[in-house]
């Protein structure tokens, strides 16, 4: 279908532009002190180019949304690929709005790479346009999901500003608890990048390993069978008590501990091991090449910003994102659930984790407004809050199966 092909191209163009924009934002911030340049002019020039690249990319992605919607016949928010791409769209949108208010080039240097990571993550999932299954055939699909994505996008900008605050204010001359935790956060970001990279690479290479569990358990029809589990990534750890049916690129180095029973437990452990490994390797390489903590490495890019301004941006983003998130991810979700399933709240994993995100940001607001937690404490909260959102997106959809999970669909 022409429109759908066009939408795919538009998304690829947007991705490319976001990548270029990220690079230029980083260049704008780090190349300031290269020989023979006027730092302010350099930052402004490259910042402006990077900003406009992001704007054009955003327009291209808008085109993707429109053409995919028309071509597919439904709002492009119906599976994991579409949702992650839409979330990235909302992050960029939130960034453009915040930039309009505060006009800080450095925000782009953090938000654009975040947007690139989200869009890259979406590419891991099957991207075909599929017609809607009955439960998604409702106007709530584009009301609930888009509002929830917008809320999360704005909270993501709050995270970026919070991270910048920490990079700006945590003293890097001595190693403290704060510097170590900051490194942990940056390493986790690298692990996410690693996960995306490894998953995309191995999915393309089709080097699956298949195991069959030795013990029979009842399946969905009540019949006894030996369940099978498929690893996309090479097997470092095999499931406990299983045999290999299809050999992959490597033989498992060890078996999962006996208490980790269940066919999927070992697969998730394997994926986690790969992510951690890649993240650690990436982190190690960067530490070796630059010979300082990553926090200290990034510090110069944020050094000239007034930390209170970053604190203000982070709080402002969260104070806008919180109501939007509540409206989209909690209230609209409840109304739709009532219409589709007759109960506005069923404690299914996705609903529970949306509630956890909501409770967390409620705690953030209370701590800030009633207990005076501003500055570093608030920044750490905004970082943790986004980690929880990521757990909702990654773990609930992929790790925990449920009525609500999108995995693979």
């Amino acid at each position, binding site marked *: 279908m022409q429109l759908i092909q066009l939408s795919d191209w538009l998304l690829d163009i947007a991705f490319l532009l976001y990548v270029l924009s990220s690079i230029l934002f980083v260049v704008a911030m780090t190349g300031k002190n290269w020989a023979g340049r006027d730092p302010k002019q350099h930052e402004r020039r490259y910042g402006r180019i990077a900003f406009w690249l992001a704007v054009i990319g955003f327009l291209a992605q808008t085109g993707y949304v429109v053409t995919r919607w028309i071509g597919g016949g439904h709002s492009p928010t119906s599976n994991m690929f579409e949702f992650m791409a839409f979330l990235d769209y909302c992050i960029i949108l939130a960034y453009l709005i915040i930039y309009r208010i505060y006009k800080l080039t450095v925000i782009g240097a953090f938000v654009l790479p975040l947007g690139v990571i989200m869009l890259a993550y979406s590419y891991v999932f099957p991207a075909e346009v599929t017609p809607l299954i009955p439960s998604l055939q409702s106007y709530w699909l584009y009301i609930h999901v888009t509002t929830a994505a917008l809320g999360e996008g704005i909270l993501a900008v709050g995270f970026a500003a919070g991270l910048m605050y920490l990079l700006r204010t945590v003293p890097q001359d001595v190693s403290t608890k704060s510097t170590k935790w900051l490194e942990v956060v940056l390493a986790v970001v690298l692990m996410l990048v690693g996960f995306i990279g490894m998953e995309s690479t191995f999915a393309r290479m089709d080097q699956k390993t298949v195991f069959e569990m030795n013990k029979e358990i009842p399946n969905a029809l009540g019949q006894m069978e030996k369940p099978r589990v498929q690893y996309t990534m090479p097997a470092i750890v095999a499931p406990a008590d299983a045999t290999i049916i299809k050999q992959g690129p490597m033989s498992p180095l060890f078996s999962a501990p006996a208490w980790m029973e*269940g066919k999927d437990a070992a697969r998730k452990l394997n994926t986690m091991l790969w992510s951690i490994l890649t993240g650690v390797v990436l982190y190690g390489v960067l530490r070796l090449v630059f010979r300082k903590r990553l926090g200290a490495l990034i510090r110069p890019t944020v050094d000239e910003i007034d930390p209170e301004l970053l604190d203000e941006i982070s709080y402002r983003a969260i104070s806008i994102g919180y109501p939007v998130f509540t409206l989209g991810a909690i209230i609209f979700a409840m109304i739709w659930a009532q219409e589709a399933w007759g109960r506005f709240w069923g404690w299914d994993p996705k609903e529970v984790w949306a509630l956890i995100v909501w409770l967390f940001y409620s705690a953030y607001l*209370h701590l800030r407004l009633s207990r005076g937690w501003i500055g570093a404490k608030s920044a750490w909260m905004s970082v943790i809050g986004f980690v929880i959102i990521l757990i909702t997106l990654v773990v609930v959809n992929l790790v925990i199966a449920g009525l609500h999970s999108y995995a693979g669909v």
Partner: protein
Amino acid sequence: MDQRKCECGHTNPIGTLLCESCGKPLDVILEEQTQFPDMRYEGMARRSQTYTRKVIDRVWNWFSSVKIAIGIIVVLLIASAVGTVFPQQPYIPVPVPTEADVARFYTETYGKLGMVYYGLGFHNLYSSWWFVTLLVMLGTSLVICSLDRVIPLYKALSNPRLNQHKSFLKGQKLYAEGLLPAGANQAELLGAAAQALRKKGYRIFSTERALLAEKGRFSRWGPYINHIGLILFLIGVLMRNIPGFFMDEYVWVREGQTVAIPETPYYVKNVNYHTEYWSESEMPEKLDLKGGVIPKSFQTDAVLYVNKNADLPGTKPDLFEVKSGPIVVNHPLEHESLYLYQSGVQEMQLGALNFDVIDQKNGDKMVGQIKMDLYNPPKEQDIGNGIKVRTLDYFPDFVIGSDGRPATKTNLPRNPMLALEIVGENGAAAEKMVYLQGSVITQKANSQYGLVIRKPDLIDITGLNVRMDKAVPLIYFGAFIFMVGVVIGLLWQHRRVWVQFQEDHVLLAGHTNKNWFGLRREVDGLIEQTKLPLAIEERTKA
């Protein structure tokens, strides 16, 4: 309450930090602390800060603490997360008809951790006594936190703090003091200040020598409004316990069958069930589904009846049709706050078995046909030619019991076993035979009659969720009020500016609950416009 008298003459309730009338920090308190009291509640006496001795006071104080409230939120947060580690009981993906099956599921699928999870009751975490207690504690905290603060706050803000004592103004975060030039017309200056502030949207309260400019007072109520919204929401949830307010039932209805809906005088009939799949031509993009299909709609054509004899126990139901129509996902059938949702389906289930009866001693000639309705097998069928088929035994879900005798696991025809007896004409000895899993086993080696298995009748069984929740409008209303409160509280700020003339000095103070940048800008604008001799000494932005 005990009273304390301020030097301005006003008697303040004990526990007041700033005099209710003139705002002077009360001496008693100043001895104990070195800084100006927090303006958050206007320095009013709060129950939780004042009364601490009796048990009821201690309980009130505990629940009115924001720190405790945050603690409850965090514990709820962590507890909720624990419930997602393994699937909750309603979401177990395999059939688990008995409690033993449930226990076995957790232990077998998740090992020791699963066993512990089940043992601790975490598989029904959200309805466990301690989780519900946490929710009740959250609700209590909402009520008490709000009452403790909103009552004194309302009293304070309803009496605008005009003519404040100098120490009140000096204690504000935004403060400036200046010497007036000789011959300055105070009344004119005050008027000019009032005018400038009015233009910025402030409401002015003034006397001859002092004014208070205020805007956005309503935003202070934001948090209390959103708390009310949450309380309404929780009340709505609690209302489920009122008889007649809440119902959650599930019925399986075979095509053609009419079943009673428990706890109601209603009956529902499944006229027809149909699953429609997306055809290739309808797909927006060519997909390689690898033999799979994508459903397009799950639809039950249903009829809802009311039993007119519902109030007369023991009488036969007298059904009267009240509604008919399709039940589709996202579009339930509704009648007087009762809703029927398309929830599940078992398609192509065995409905009836069909057999040809043949005469094996006569060239396998077919002598008749029988139909065994697996939900209501006939005791005897007369197939003509004087031949009768009797049903001796029927096990819908056949299994050999622990005592070695035939039994049935469930009452659904998942694995039907029929023991039949065929009696021929002229009263010859009845021949017994058994049907099980696609084969017919005869008792005698060379019996006269045999059975040939024909295609069974397959039926669809639709699963309808029947629900009623009369509290839903209250719940939506509570959510709406919550949003209103959040928006009011976060989007606007409460700003106040005091201007006072004392002999030859002019004093200015400002306060806001958030966004000091904005207030500072407006005050700078005011000073510039009125040319008041003021230089602001803003305290640290704590």
